[in-house]
């Protein structure tokens, strides 16, 4: 037997065990004591923003009457739709029940908000119920205006070479039916995006890259001709990223069609008409990915909460871009897609926005002023192929704001960024919904 020099004593062993237990007992920063209040807080929307906020408010407020209003029984993990539409995850990957995420001790009204009267501080539901509030958070998401594309209807998705992954899990799965056929048979694939503000402006690019990659891996790259129809003269809102995407497109043989906004389709003859600065242009397609114009829900646009001089065709809520507080009604906040701020229609933005709204709302209830600010942070794991992505993070100023500077390069196609998207993102999202991240 060999005698090693390493001969630990019982004392060392006990010391190690004790330090392990000390580490396990440490549970992070201590939260301030809850604010005692009888305030009535109403949240419209139980999506990413509304749910994450309510789970945090429940710990911050003692005695408040909190009501959350949402018509959908299903909660959607929308960042997963790109993966569903590329056949990498089933539709069920994005679905859960709204009630699974809501805390006890609040009122959940499973109806749509049908009216908001900011003067009398009253929300009416589609069930005719009136709910009065002292503070209101509007987080109903946005609506996809499919009717704005002439000749398009959701029934077409999955056949006739038409995809529309934004429309929900079922349509994302049907998008993959049409897209997978295209990756085998080839032809002209046209990938569009609307000219309005939109959810995750990286998603149209991800779908383009993924479908190109899947066709390439199947050995069918020679059969496909891929066109990316950009809404203006750039490929992404952040110039440095746009330039990177232009280089990747060139490398992959993807043709950008600048300032081509989808206007109408003829599904029978598989022709799409685009509005361009030089007038309408018609293109034939074998696969067409449709992302329609996006707007605030009617209830918001009719309530007088929207900007009067900005995005007038879209109706986003008039809020301060740093605090997300309404500029005319200080007891109202907007959160998520519906907020009238540049950028910021992603789950990552919501994660940054929720603590800001929480801070100002709780401060207002306590009679003080909040201090937290939102800098426009948005994050997009821009998938460039199955197995690689670029972890792009930026703010209002189009500055890149990497979370791991010097470690994870934002403009490089990396496996670790893909692992984050595929493994860690949904987990982080779920933790956010529970108010823990």
């Amino acid at each position, binding site marked *: *037997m060999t005698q*090693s020099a390493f001969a630990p004593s019982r004392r060392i062993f006990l010391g190690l065990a004790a330090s392990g237990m000390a580490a396990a007992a440490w549970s992070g920063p201590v939260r301030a004591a809850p604010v005692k209040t009888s305030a009535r807080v109403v949240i419209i929307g139980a999506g990413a923003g509304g749910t994450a906020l309510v789970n945090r408010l429940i710990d911050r407020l003692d005695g408040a009457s909190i009501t959350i209003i949402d018509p959908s029984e299903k909660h959607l993990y929308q960042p997963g739709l790109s993966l569903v539409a590329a056949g990498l995850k089933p539709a069920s990957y994005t679905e859960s029940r709204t009630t699974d995420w809501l805390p006890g001790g609040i009122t959940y009204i499973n109806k749509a908000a049908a009216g908001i009267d900011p003067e009398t501080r009253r929300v009416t539901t589609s069930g005719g119920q009136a709910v009065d509030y002292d503070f209101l958070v509007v987080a109903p998401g946005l609506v996809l205006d499919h009717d704005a594309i002439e000749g398009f209807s959701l029934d077409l998705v999955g056949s006739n070479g038409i995809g529309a992954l934004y429309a929900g899990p079922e349509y994302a799965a049907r998008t993959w039916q049409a897209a997978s056929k295209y990756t085998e048979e080839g032809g002209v694939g046209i990938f569009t995006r609307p000219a309005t503000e939109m959810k995750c402006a990286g998603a149209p690019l991800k779908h383009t890259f993924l479908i190109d990659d899947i066709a390439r891996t199947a050995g069918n790259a020679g059969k496909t001709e891929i066109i990316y129809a950009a809404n203006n003269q750039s490929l992404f809102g952040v110039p440095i990223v746009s330039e990177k995407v232009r280089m990747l497109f060139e490398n992959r043989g993807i043709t950008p069609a600048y300032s081509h906004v989808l206007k109408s389709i003829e599904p029978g003859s598989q022709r799409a008409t685009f509005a361009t600065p030089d007038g309408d242009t018609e293109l034939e397609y074998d696969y067409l990915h449709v992302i329609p114009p996006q707007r605030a829900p009617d209830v918001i646009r009719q309530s007088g909460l929207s900007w009067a001089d900005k995005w007038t065709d879209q109706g986003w809520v008039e809020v301060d871009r740093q605090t997300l507080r309404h500029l005319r009604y200080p007891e109202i906040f907007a959160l998520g897609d519906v907020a009238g701020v540049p950028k910021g229609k992603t789950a990552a933005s919501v994660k940054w926005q929720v603590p800001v709204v929480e801070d100002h709302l709780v401060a207002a209830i306590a009679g003080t002023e909040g201090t937290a600010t939102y800098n426009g942070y948005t994050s997009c794991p821009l998938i460039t192929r199955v*197995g690689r992505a670029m972890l792009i993070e930026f703010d209002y100023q189009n500055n890149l704001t990497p*979370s791991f500077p010097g470690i994870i390069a934002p403009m490089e196609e990396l*496996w*670790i960024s893909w692992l984050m998207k595929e493994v860690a993102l949904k987990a982080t999202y779920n933790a956010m919904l529970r108010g823990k*991240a």
Partner: protein
Amino acid sequence: MKDLTFTTLIAVFEEIFGRGLFWAMVVAAVVITAAYLYVLVRDRSMSMRKFLLAQLSMPLGAIAAVLFVQLITNSGFSDIGGPIDLIVLLGVASLGAVGIAVLVYTLQSLIRSRTG
């Protein structure tokens, strides 16, 4: 990441594996580590024969860990895109190697007598 604290990390890991499985794995890791320290203290020495077998098992643990990560994700070796990816790959392999070495050493010590 905003507020990347210890509690956030725990919450994220709970969501990745499910709360039950995550804490079961934590307990398993703690038990194996404690058992390893126990046999070291009990024997008051490292047995180089047991350690040899543990070392021989390290490449297997490394390869198994890497293949496991690739199996649960849609990715493979060709997706390595930069230095950090290589570091992650080696990190995963190292964890697998050290993990299996500790496990093999501890199991031998517990199963065989302290004569080793």
